[in-house]
């Protein structure tokens, strides 16, 4: 391992950018701010690319770089160390690449906004933490990034902090994530207690010899479940997904970067990274797969009824993350990571395109007020089309390969089951339906908005996105090139990104991580299992499954075409037939209300009535105040002793002396 990749520079560069913009950006011009932001994130991407080029020449398949000892306590030791293997390499490229593109896009999107420098400082800060997360060599260093991206997410969701909605959405994201982090932390404590290390290599080496745990409780199962809780928080899975839709209050590039492409995939990455543990805890893995399946299905149904373009995409993100969870649960880690990658391309693009649509319409987010934009903003339309086809799973777009891979593995893997596959398939149909619904509503038909012509600033809805377009910005217009170029690049990636799986190239690339020298018994079974059967039969079956999922996507397309293009009046009539179901779905199954009643309200009321008015005011304050009052009253009485009358003092002296003498007489003199 002679080559030195200087991995530490990759996360540190954006940190420097964040510091420069954050500390002095206020005095910089917008050009300088964007130059700083772009050059540091771009440099990180370039270094990432260089690491990727150098990586094969390392030979060993992994690379470790230790900077300094962070903490040492007895045998326990954590270094500031970075670690690169195939898995972190993929994540590194996705994060820095998509991150860089979205930085470019943001220059155009945020140009008119206040706090331009603040935005870029936060974005760079996010990149620093995210890159730390994916390059970490131990759970503790990963945890720095894990918490840091949460912080960056909080700052960026609440970027327009003067709007109460945005501020509370930021708080919600932060607090819900705390629940997950709590699980993650306890898992780390358990690991320290029982294995004495948090370093990936040594930790997994000591877990390796252990066999899979049987059904029921066990150390590894509890660790895996706690890690899963952490991942659920970060990756927005049931029951902790509620923060992600609200996070759409942030600027759209943030939704694209953090809440679609990168940060929310941290949970998936963490589970894939911990695959050694999950392989040995089948019960926990089943739980992961079940949660993922449920989330995928559940979020997809919510997505159907949403009218806010970003909310649809948010639920779609949750649903796709559910797919990745499902893949991780059935030990199809490389399929999950593959979907993570393609999803980063097409979902990032979808958000950017949605941002471009909103930009064109001056902040309009409601799809009912869109329509017919196909000819007005052609670039946005075509890039969005690529992304829509990709997410719907139409071949040969990227999403088809990854989603199909997950569905196939969910069925065929030793831990898989047809239940996962069936729900996955229904979800694929729903996905295709709601994405094409979005597509048709936005770009086809007649324009339904009110801002057709010249005076948009009069109707500029302040309730939307805080998107303050200056006057004269009003007519529907295509976005500037600085926004279109990143979209175009992502569109190309959304088309071709899936082709890397040809002949299992991607899977084989990741294989050393998941099945290499560290192969777990179950993972081995997964490898050898299909080979045991007739390869031809397997292939035929796989093709059949592929055809079924393409058919599902096509049905989704057809339904969307029928309902939102051909017969736009039908949805209304359908809704009238099933009002209860429709309203339940429209209100997201009332989960927010349920949580409010179950957790938020008792917490607030309990805090106010019991802790504040009860304990704080009646016990603590009363104790402090009471002792002061008592001291004053006692002093009030006692001060009369100090009359200034010398003879009364003498009387007291005599009295005291008498008591002393009486006491001495009473005890007797020895």
């Amino acid at each position, binding site marked *: 391992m002679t080559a030195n990749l200087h991995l530490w520079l990759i996360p540190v560069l954006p940190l420097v950018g964040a510091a420069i913009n954050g500390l002095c950006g206020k005095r910089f011009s917008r050009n300088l701010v964007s130059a700083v932001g772009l050059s540091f994130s771009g440099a990180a991407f370039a270094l990432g690319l260089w690491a990727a080029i150098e990586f094969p020449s390392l030979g060993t398949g992994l690379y470790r770089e230790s900077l300094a000892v962070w903490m040492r306590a007895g045998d326990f030791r954590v270094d500031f160390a970075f670690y690169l293997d195939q898995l972190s390499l993929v994540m590194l490229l996705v994060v820095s690449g998509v991150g860089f593109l979205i930085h470019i896009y943001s220059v155009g999107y945020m140009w008119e906004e206040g706090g331009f420098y603040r935005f870029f400082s936060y974005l760079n800060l996010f990149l620093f933490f995210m890159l730390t997360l994916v390059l970490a060599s131990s759970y503790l260093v990963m945890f720095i990034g894990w918490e840091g991206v949460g912080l960056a997410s909080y700052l960026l969701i609440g970027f327009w902090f003067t709007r109460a909605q945005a501020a509370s959405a930021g708080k919600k994201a932060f607090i819900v994530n705390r629940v997950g982090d709590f699980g993650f932390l306890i898992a780390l404590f358990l690991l320290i207690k029982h294995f004495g290390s948090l370093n990936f290599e040594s930790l997994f080496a000591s877990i390796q010899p252990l066999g899979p745990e049987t059904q029921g409780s066990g150390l590894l199962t509890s660790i895996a479940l706690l890690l899963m809780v952490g991942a659920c928080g970060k990756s927005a899975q049931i029951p902790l997904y509620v923060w992600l839709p609200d996070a759409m209050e942030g600027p759209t590039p943030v939704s694209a970067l953090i809440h679609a492409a990168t940060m929310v995939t941290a949970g998936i990455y963490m589970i894939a990274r911990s695959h050694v543990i999950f392989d040995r805890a089948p019960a926990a893995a089943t739980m992961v797969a079940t949660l993922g399946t449920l989330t995928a299905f559940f979020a997809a149904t919510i997505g159907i009824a949403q009218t806010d373009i970003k909310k649809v995409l948010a639920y779609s993100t949750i649903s796709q993350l559910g797919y990745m969870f499902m893949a991780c649960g059935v030990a199809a880690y490389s399929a999950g990571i593959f979907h993570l990658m393609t999803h980063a391309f097409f979902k990032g693009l979808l958000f950017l395109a949605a941002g471009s649509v909103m930009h064109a319409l001056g902040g309009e987010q409601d799809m009912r007020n869109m329509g017919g934009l196909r000819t007005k903003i052609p670039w946005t339309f075509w890039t969005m089309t690529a992304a829509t086809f990709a997410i719907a799973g139409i071949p040969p777009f990227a999403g088809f390969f990854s989603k199909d891979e997950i569905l196939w593995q969910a069925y065929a893997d030793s831990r898989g089951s047809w239940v996962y596959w069936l729900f996955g398939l229904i979800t694929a149909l729903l996905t295709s339906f709601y994405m094409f619904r979005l597509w048709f509503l936005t770009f086809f038909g007649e324009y339904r908005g009110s801002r057709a012509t010249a005076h948009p600033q009069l109707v500029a809805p302040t309730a939307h996105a805080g998107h303050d377009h200056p006057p004269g910005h009003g007519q529907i217009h295509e976005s500037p090139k600085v926004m279109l170029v990143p979209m175009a690049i992502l569109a190309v990636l959304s088309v071709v990104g899936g082709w890397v799986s040809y002949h299992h190239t991607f899977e084989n690339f990741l294989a050393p991580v998941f099945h290499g020298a560290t192969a777990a018994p179950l993972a081995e079974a997964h490898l050898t299992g299909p080979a045991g059967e007739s390869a031809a039969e397997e292939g035929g079956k796989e093709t059949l499954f592929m055809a079924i999922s393409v058919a599902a996507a096509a049905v989704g397309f057809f339904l969307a075409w029928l309902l939102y293009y051909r017969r736009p009046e039908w949805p209304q009539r359908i809704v009238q037939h099933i009002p209860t179901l429709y309203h339940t779905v429209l209100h997201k199954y009332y989960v927010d209300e349920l949580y409010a009643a179950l957790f938020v309200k008792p917490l607030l009321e309990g805090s106010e009535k019991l802790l504040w008015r009860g304990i704080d005011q009646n016990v603590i304050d009363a104790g402090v105040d009471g002792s002061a009052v008592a001291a004053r009253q006692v002093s009030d009485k006692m001060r009369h002793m100090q009359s*200034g*009358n*010398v*003879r009364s003092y*003498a*009387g007291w002296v*005599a009295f005291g002396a008498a008591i002393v003498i009486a006491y001495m007489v009473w005890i007797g003199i020895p």
Partner: protein
Amino acid sequence: MVPLSYYLVLSGILFASGVTGFLIKRNIITIFMSIELMLNGVNLSFVAFAAQWGALSGQVFVFFVMVVAAAEAAVGLAIIIAVFRTRETLNVDYVNLLKL
């Protein structure tokens, strides 16, 4: 020989009446005399103990006390005269300049 306890009881009575006089009298001269009474009460126990144990130090101490008491009487009476001249009273309740 008169037992020691008799002397001590007498000494205690003298001291107690000195204290009582000091506390209840208003007139400075009476207070002054009460102080002398206390001193003499103490002196009595000194000499009683000295006689009892055959140790001279108690008697020597009494001389010191008498010397100090004499000096104190001289200064004290001078102060009393000065006070009477300025305030025309010997009632301590009215001599309360320091009390404020």
